[in-house]
């Protein structure tokens, strides 16, 4: 009797988590693409693709294609712009079960169909053309971008499938750019409970197989991934499965590690941090890299993602947990000061979305809804509003302004876990399953809208907001040619710099310093030929009988 009661109580305690993490491997009934190994030569029939293909580290000119076979074999990717003419080939003759082929020399913003195989033939292809790469646009390009954001998805159960299917329904029915997903952004905890290879198979590859064949996946490390991954040695399933740019191959600044990295896509700069294993100290390697990276980008939008949330009162508490507090106190002042627009986190299994914020680094109860100009933590006249175009209006961020960011904790793509969900800085807090989609598009007035929608597992869009940025990519004053100042004229056509002096002023010396401050040219003439100077920025030091002053020109 007592044993029974003990059992019942134990069962009661465990019921929630068990219900949400049990693996129920039902058939995937909503697959949008079916890949069939067709036309296989006899001698390759024994080799099967058991994982992938999936796309990694996409840049405007390259992408990495990865897959796994059950038997070690060569790696071949056939690709081309036309489905029926995959005339190009990238291959590796080494025998392996873990295939990784880099396609390079691609054209930006271009669709390439592909299949994978070995020297004997094709092992996996999509006859209907659902296996393709669309290369990234060149950095700075203004165009429509859609990213699918998945936090704490890896339960491998029907919750995860339902969330996935709701997004597939959304993107298929989208009025604009239907079917297009430029990237998948995973916010960590991609495979419960320890991010093992088998768990990744169940929770990532088996679930998102169709999307992974046509959309580049990026991720940050979650605490559950971190149980089997060792960031100190960059080993374990997470680091084996993913291939991220360590040397700024996709834009940004070289981090030298896959634990944290950045990339550019169109006019958006993405910064991916490791809030779990890596030191979060100010002045640590990750902090220094982040600062150098964010102060090096000229992109219109800056989005960052890491697992541990800045603000949450869901199944975790950003007022009490070390990693969350450290990320908020150490990283956010610097990132906000340098213009971050959107912060994406997981960890709490809920959806919590902030107002339009700046400068709130304290506990939840210190949040002040007033505008920053009045000592508060919100930005703009409607920063404390809901950010909805059809309600309180989009959050406004002029291109000349750095302040204003929205923080989203979206960790319910696989399960929900409740919590108080009452963080004061949050506009919306929901204990609901779902994933987010971020869409950036022109606003028709020379600016852009960045809209994020929370898509529930039942297809409802439960929350949405927009950040409107006006005057995107306003260029700085050009100084290439013409009158630089009242005292200097640069004639680019004639490669001449002309100095204008007062009548009673005598020119003594003119010195040209190049972009690293090196003296490269001297003259005593008022008209100076600069045809032999290489392109770049120059400071010109002018010394006359009356004064010394400096001018600058950019030779293009």
């Amino acid at each position, binding site marked *: 009797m*007592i*044993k029974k009661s*003990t059992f019942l*109580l134990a069962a*009661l*305690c465990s019921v929630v*988590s068990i219900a949400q*993490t049990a693996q129920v491997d039902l058939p995937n009934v909503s697959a949008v693409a079916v890949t069939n190994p067709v036309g296989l030569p006899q001698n390759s029939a024994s080799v099967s693709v058991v994982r992938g293909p999936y796309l990694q580290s996409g840049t405007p000119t390259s992408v990495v294609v990865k897959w796994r076979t059950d038997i070690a074999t060569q790696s071949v990717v056939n690709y081309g712009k036309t489905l029926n003419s995959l005339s190009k080939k990238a291959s590796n003759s080494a025998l392996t079960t873990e295939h990784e082929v880099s396609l390079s020399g691609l054209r930006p913003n271009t669709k390439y169909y592909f299949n994978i195989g070995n020297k004997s033939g094709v092992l996996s292809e999509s006859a209907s053309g659902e296996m393709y790469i669309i290369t990234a646009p060149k950095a700075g390009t203004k165009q429509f971008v859609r990213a699918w954001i998945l936090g704490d998805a890896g339960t491998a159960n029907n919750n995860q499938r339902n969330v996935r299917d709701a997004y597939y329904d959304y993107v298929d029915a989208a009025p604009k750019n239907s079917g297009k997903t430029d990237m998948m952004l995973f916010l960590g905890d991609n495979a419960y409970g320890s991010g093992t290879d088998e768990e990744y198979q169940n929770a990532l590859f088996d679930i998102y197989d169709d999307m992974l064949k046509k959309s580049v996946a990026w991720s940050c490390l979650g605490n559950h991934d971190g149980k089997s991954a060792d*960031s*100190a*040695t*960059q*080993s374990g399933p997470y680091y084996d499965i993913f291939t991220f740019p*360590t*040397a*700024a191959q996709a834009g940004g*600044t*070289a*981090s*030298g*590690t896959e*634990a944290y990295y950045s990339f550019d896509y169109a006019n958006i700069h993405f910064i991916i941090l490791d809030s779990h294993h*890596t030191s979060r100290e100010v002045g640590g*390697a990750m902090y*220094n890299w982040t600062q*150098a*990276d964010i*102060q*090096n*980008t*000229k992109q219109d939008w800056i989005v960052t993602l890491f697992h541990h949330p800045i603000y949450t009162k869901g*199944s*975790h508490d950003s007022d009490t947990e*070390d990693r969350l507090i450290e990320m908020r106190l150490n990283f956010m002042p610097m990132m906000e000061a*340098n*213009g971050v627009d959107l912060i994406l986190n997981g960890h709490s*299994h809920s959806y919590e979305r902030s107002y339009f914020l700046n400068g709130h680094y304290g506990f939840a109860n210190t949040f002040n809804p007033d505008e920053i100009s009045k000592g508060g933590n919100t930005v703009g006249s409607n920063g404390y509003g809901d950010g909805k175009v059809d309600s309180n209006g989009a959050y406004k961020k*002029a*291109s*000349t*302004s*750095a302040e204003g960011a929205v923080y989203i904790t979206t960790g319910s793509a696989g399960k929900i*876990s*409740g*919590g108080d969900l009452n963080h004061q800085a949050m506009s919306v807090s929901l204990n609901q399953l779902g994933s987010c989609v971020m869409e950036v598009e022109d606003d028709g007035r020379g600016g852009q809208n960045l809209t994020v929608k929370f898509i529930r597992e039942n297809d409802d869009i439960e929350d949405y907001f927009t950040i409107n940025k006006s*005057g995107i*990519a*306003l*260029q*700085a*004053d050009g*100084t290439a040619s013409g009158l630089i100042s009242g005292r200097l004229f640069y004639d680019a056509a004639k490669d001449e710099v002309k100095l204008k002096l007062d009548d009673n002023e005598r020119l003594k010396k003119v010195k040209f*310093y190049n*972009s*690293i*401050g090196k003296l490269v040219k001297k003259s005593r003439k008022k008209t100076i030929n600069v045809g032999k100077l290489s392109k770049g920025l120059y*400071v010109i030091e002018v010394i006359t009988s009356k004064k010394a002053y*400096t001018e*600058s020109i*950019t030779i293009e």
Partner: protein
Amino acid sequence: MIFNNKRYLHFVIKRTLPILLFLSLSLPMFAHGDLTIRIAEKTIEISEDPNNFELYYQRGMLYQQHMEYDYALEDYLKSLSLGNTTKALHYQLAEVHYLMEEYKEALKSIYSYLELDSMDLSAKKLQAQILFNLKSYKKSLEGYHYVIHNMKDIRPEDILEYCNIILAENNENYNGALKAIQYGLDQLGPHTISLQLRKLDILKDSGQTEKALEQYNYFIQEYNRNEFWYYKKAKYLAKIKRPHEAFISLKLASVAIEQLNAKFKKMIPVIELKEQIKSLESSINNQKS
């Protein structure tokens, strides 16, 4: 036997029911099945099998993940006392002692581990870190050198730590530190920022002014935005009493700011930079006069 069963059931009620009641009442708080609930579950298992050293080891791991190092250590020591002689336990003991800054105890445990597996790189790295904290720099350096040159996937953080040990062992061994940085750049990529930044610091600390200036120029040429680098270079030039060059570098910083898009000019770091430029310019003018 019946008596024993009754005693056992009484024990179970006494030990487990409060835990279970606590868990059931606090479900909303811990419903995500995270560490707290897993620790509680492990506690129940221990109460049912109190002499199982594996269970103490497992709970210790959970406590360690939860950053409750005192409890983790208590469990590891209990596991040891119950007969756990695995190398994994020795490693965890060493790690948790290290995290608690009990370096002598940590060293004993890592030696025990290395007696069982002398080639494990993670353990050798931990040993070197412990030795460093015990100020046994020479031994620490030997160990870390082995780790760095045998580890498959080093990180920038490893190279930075290696440099610190090199300079702790001999605070004038700048060449050794620079070689370590170069090794890191060769392994991780020539533009790995944290290593390039450390290289700059070492060049400055060692008084290699021309090389330090070259390093500033590297940053200026390598990066899209260079207003901060111009200023930092100017500050260094002023420090080494080369005011005119500092002045030119400040001018370049100002021009670089002017060429930024309006958004960047309004950012706090850039506004602060403008003030710093003004202040340094004024100080340089004083230096000149």
